[in-house]
């Protein structure tokens, strides 16, 4: 059958990874029709308008649980729990993955890539030249303490891009790392509790974010994350804190993990944010099409293909039983971090109302760009938004 695949990827590593899947699909006798809508041009509304317009794609990349609920409400739900059990996939998934693919207790997504949202990737050459070792940092204070050295050596300590999405991700990674999983869940989890905004740990997080923002020069305005990454790759900056998908950029530039660049979690992190990129399948279609969609799912979660996919994309396989030989230093690091289920929290994309999330982004981004805005202002604003949106 002809599968219409909707996604928002078009960076080279992403496309390479998609091609891995495409080969798998075609091996099963299906064809792949591509609809690509870039990020930040309203991808999920576009998905919903495709659905409303009566042209829903068969397979779509989507994490937001709300979308799945909406689709189920419109008769397009495609429950997969049974299929996962029948095919013995569930038992091989890390806890964070298993948690993120279920919506209201029913598995509806097909996980394709695993990332940690806040990882430190640093240029080993720069580190060596300056004489700092990020792997040795045990706390953020230690990290900031080394920054002066980096500056003195003529490098930027940390590359940042002033874009809502980069700042938003950094923020929630910092919340998980500094304020810890409980506060994180009270903000970015399914049930928001505005009381945690008053927690001193949250204020500390904001102060830390301010430190990062001070690293952003005028030229950081609107700088895309791949350019940010590129500053580190080309040795202009020491490090970057971002989702580990930036590894794709490193690999794309022909660099080798562990040799050219290193990766560590945010120093002293109390917990890490796990992003699972996942596909949704369209229900309410013919049996033939359902079979084809399930073939797609089986290709995606196939351990061999996972390994190849991850290598291409720069992600970590979503299965614990993916061939270990294919893992690079950073993936190994990620999997080792994920060994402790208590230190994992889910990406907001999987849990939280997009309205709420984007309001946090707005507030945080304003804070980032406006030095005169105080921590108290942020907290007041967030509380206010909470009243409006969820209250």
């Amino acid at each position: 059958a002809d599968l219409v695949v909707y996604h928002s990827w078009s960076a080279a590593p992403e496309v390479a990874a998609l091609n891995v899947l495409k080969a798998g699909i075609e091996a099963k006798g299906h064809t792949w029709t591509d609809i690509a809508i870039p990020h930040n041009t309203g991808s999920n509304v576009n998905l919903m308008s495709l659905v409303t317009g009566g042209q829903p794609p068969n397979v779509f990349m989507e994490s937001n649980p709300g979308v799945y609920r909406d689709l189920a409400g419109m008769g397009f739900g495609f429950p997969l729990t049974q299929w996962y059990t029948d095919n013995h996939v569930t038992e091989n998934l890390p806890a964070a993955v298993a948690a993120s693919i279920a919506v209201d207790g029913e598995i509806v997504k097909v996980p394709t890539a695993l990332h940690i949202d806040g990882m430190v990737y640093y240029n080993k050459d720069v580190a060596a030249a300056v004489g700092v070792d990020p792997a040795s940092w045990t706390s953020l204070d230690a990290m900031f303490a080394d920054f002066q050295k980096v500056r003195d050596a003529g490098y930027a300590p940390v590359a940042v891009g002033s874009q809502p999405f980069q700042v938003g991700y950094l923020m929630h990674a910092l919340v998980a790392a500094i304020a810890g999983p409980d506060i994180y869940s009270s903000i970015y989890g399914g049930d928001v509790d505005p009381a945690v905004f008053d927690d001193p740990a949250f204020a500390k997080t904001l102060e830390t974010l301010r430190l990062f923002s001070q690293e952003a020069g005028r030229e950081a305005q609107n700088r895309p994350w791949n350019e940010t990454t590129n500053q580190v790759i080309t040795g202009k900056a020491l490090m970057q804190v971002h989702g580990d998908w930036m590894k794709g950029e490193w690999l794309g530039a022909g660099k080798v993990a562990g040799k050219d660049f290193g990766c560590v979690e945010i120093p002293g992190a109390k917990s890490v944010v796990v992003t699972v990129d996942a596909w949704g399948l369209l229900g309410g279609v013919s049996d033939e099409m359902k079979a084809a969609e399930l073939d797609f799912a089986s290709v995606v979660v196939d351990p061999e293909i996972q390994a190849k996919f991850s290598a291409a994309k720069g992600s970590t396989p979503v299965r614990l039983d993916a061939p270990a030989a294919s893992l690079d230093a950073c993936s190994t690091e990620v999997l080792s971090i994920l060994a402790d289920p208590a230190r994992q929290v889910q990406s907001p994309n999987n849990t939280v109302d997009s309205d709420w999330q984007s309001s946090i982004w707005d507030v945080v981004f304003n804070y980032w760009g406006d030095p005169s805005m105080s921590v108290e202002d942020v907290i007041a604003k967030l509380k206010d938004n909470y009243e409006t949106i969820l209250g």
Partner: protein
Amino acid sequence: MSEITIAARNAKGEVTVSRAPYFPRKKKTITGRSIAVLVFLALCALFFCIPLYVVVVTSFKTMDQIREGAMFSLPYVWTLEAWDHAWNSACSGINCNGLKVGFWSSVSILIPSLILSIGISMITGYALALWNVRWAGAFLFILFICAFVPFQIIMFPLISMTAALKVYGSIWGVALVHAVLAMPVLTLIFRNYYKDIPQEIMSAAVMDSGSFWRIFTEIILPMSGNILIVVLIMQITSIWNDYLIGVTFGGPGSQPMTVNLANLITISTGVTRYNDNMAAALLTAIPPLVIYFFVGKLFVQGITAGAIKG
């Protein structure tokens, strides 16, 4: 009688020959004020050309040179690599066939969109301006209001409507939406233009033929040259440059070139490949630019001929 005029003219001819200028005058050269005006205009023209210059120059540079900064400098080596890449192998999603794919789908969107949007508005404008229709005044007023309605306010309803008509996600869906959104303004433009067609011509045509369509095709349509040029140019550029409608209403295979371009520009690998981006941007802009350079004169003429009025 004709002989006579010739004779008179001959007489005048003879006088002319035997004459020398008595008060010869220096040929006037350009005045100071003219120079000032021309200099000012030239500076403005320069300002207007800056973005185009930057885009063009960059599209011919290598990435190495671009990294040096100096965006106003000329390329050290002129290379067509970026153009080739943008046209043939740039990726949009999983398909790396370059912009040429989107180019053709843009063309195939453009044509039905033009026909539909101009067709409906033209006939409506004609009926409103030259025929006696009921409630014409009220309808015109509503159209006038509609012309001001922001697209956003009816975007969502339009999705449902095109879905109900089973044209969502196809070229026809995009064409229909273009026609709907352009209809109020274009109708007003056509109506204003047709209003100036002498009433007597319509009277004559009604007495000669009386057929609505026949008068339209044989008399009015051929008289619409000026306005058609203006509207065509306006519509070609706005349809060709449209992104939002294409991305919202175009399904797989019917997304215009601008969507490809956005895919290319918004996310690209590693270093932003400015040269590729600029080449792609130029490729996207070429058709409307070509039209402007060649028929821009007619556009201004059309406007001057009263094509667009309040």
